[in-house]
């Protein structure tokens, strides 16, 4: 339930920020939305499985599913990289934040 609420709040905030005009806000929106997606991915492995996924340390029935954790790790790295790149674009000198006009 906590996870579901957390994801809901993150998505709400993320979508709100995505619909803003400035690129920096949009990027923050993506940060929130990315966290929501990662939490969702993590919870898809089953939140009731709490033991460490190391052979011999716990009952295999209670071990956490390591695959979604590996997924999330990969996804975090990718989202982080793209976010940094977007921030660089937002900070570049050419053009203002408001780029609706198609210029020559």
């Amino acid at each position, binding site marked *: 339930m906590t996870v579901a609420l957390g994801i809901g709040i993150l998505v709400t905030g993320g979508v709100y920020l*995505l619909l803003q005009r400035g*690129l920096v806000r*949009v990027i923050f929106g*993506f940060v929130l*939305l*990315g966290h*929501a*997606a*990662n939490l*969702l*991915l993590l*919870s*898809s*492995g089953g939140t009731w499985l709490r033991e460490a996924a190391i052979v011999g340390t716990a009952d295999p029935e209670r071990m956490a599913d390591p*695959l*979604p954790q590996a*997924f999330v790790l*990969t*996804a975090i790295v*990718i*989202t982080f*990289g*793209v976010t940094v*790149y*977007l921030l660089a*674009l*937002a900070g*570049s000198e*050419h*053009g203002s934040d408001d*780029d609706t006009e*198609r*210029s*020559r």
Partner: protein
Amino acid sequence: MTGALLPLTVAVPLLAAAVLAMVRGTRFPRRAMLVAVLIALLAGNASLAGVVRDGRVLAHDVGSWPGGIAISFAVDLFSALMLTATALVTLVCVAFAAATDVGRNRFFGPLVLVLYGGVCGALLTADLFNLFVFVEVMLAPSYVLISVFGRSSRIAAGRLYAVVNLLGSTVLLIGIAAVYGLAGTVNLGDLAGSGRESPAMAVAAGVVLIAFLVKAAAFPVYGWLPNTYPNTSPAVAALFSGLHTKVAVYAVYRIYAVVYDGDPRYLVVLVTIATITMAVGVLGAVGESTTGTILIFNMVSGIGYVLLGVALFGPMGITAGMFYLVHHMVVMASLLLSTGAVLVTYGSQYLEELGGVARREPLLAAAFLGAAFSLAGVPPFSGFVAKFAVIRAAVAEGQYVAAATALVVGFVALVSVLKIWHWVFWGRMPKEGAQRHRSMSLAEMPRVRPVLIVPALLLTLISLGMGPGAEPVLAMTEQAAQGLVDTATYVEEVAGQ
């Protein structure tokens, strides 16, 4: 050839990119190496297509990890055809780029190779999460390519492009999470048919499909495409048009065939999306005033035709859709490269600033006109065969609205490309256009260099060849379609033990 060699298709371009990034010195060795690597990859992919020609599926779990954990690669005739077409388009676009200022950038070669490696990975992987990873591998260099090369508005284009694709990727990730939560696996072989059996699974996989439809620029989220591609350099735009949206369309084909097992209940949604995409794309094209935007809107329209192929799920529809996909990759690249040669030489893509190119450059004009007729579906070019096949399949399936739309859209597409022909190639160069180019008289205007004409001409000739010689290509797409209609072989090879 065994499946164990499949990862090479991805590893070779990525390693070559790393080596190429380190090569210093003059331009020649870097270009020669880039072209040599791409030729080798084209040969490899073509031989791969030869191996799986009879409908075999080669699969390999990287590192021989047990099924479900390993990164699994699989190739059937559909992915092999796509790989070959991808390598061909990449090679031609790189040859064009090498002749323009884009190719002078040291990082162009490595970026293109990483992009190409990502595309190959996405076409080969049989696992939803790895599909996401390879799509990101493909997108990362694209963000750079689109905002480093091109006109002054390229940064704005790069922002829009990155934002749309990041949103698409996030939705894709959410969809994958839902699929994993429901099924406990993301291996396509293990997911086979699950969308047909359980409605919850159909919704989860539907989220994945929505993400790919956004990336394919299908209605209603297509507006980002005409606002991004025309602002980058012509070589990059042609490269992207051949690779990016096509990978997304490929994913839609694959997922609908394997996960939904071609479930007829949801096809009406796809037919609607495809039909509207065809219509809005071409209507957008008629109203535009630059060569780039006219062509890119036509590309959106073409995506509609290709999607109609999978929306008519059946041997005829998928055969037609695949043929259209290959035809579309070749023809769009040709059109963007021939108008790109005009843009590179005369410095404008605005219709009113150009004119009289046909008189000065008859070969380039021939390349453009051929590809334009092919796009519109005029015989004897490949476009006629492709459109005819799609319309025939639509009529056979009783989708008369889609068939009529496909027919009418062909005529409107002809109008839109003839607009380019009329303004850019026919008539005379207007004075302002010549002045814009700093040389005051027309006689002093530079000629289009032959190296810029050859790539477009080559692609147009391929399209011409695929018209009268459509039979072998159609036979191959028919065999490939068989593999999607009946996915048993693919599933058997891919599924984890």
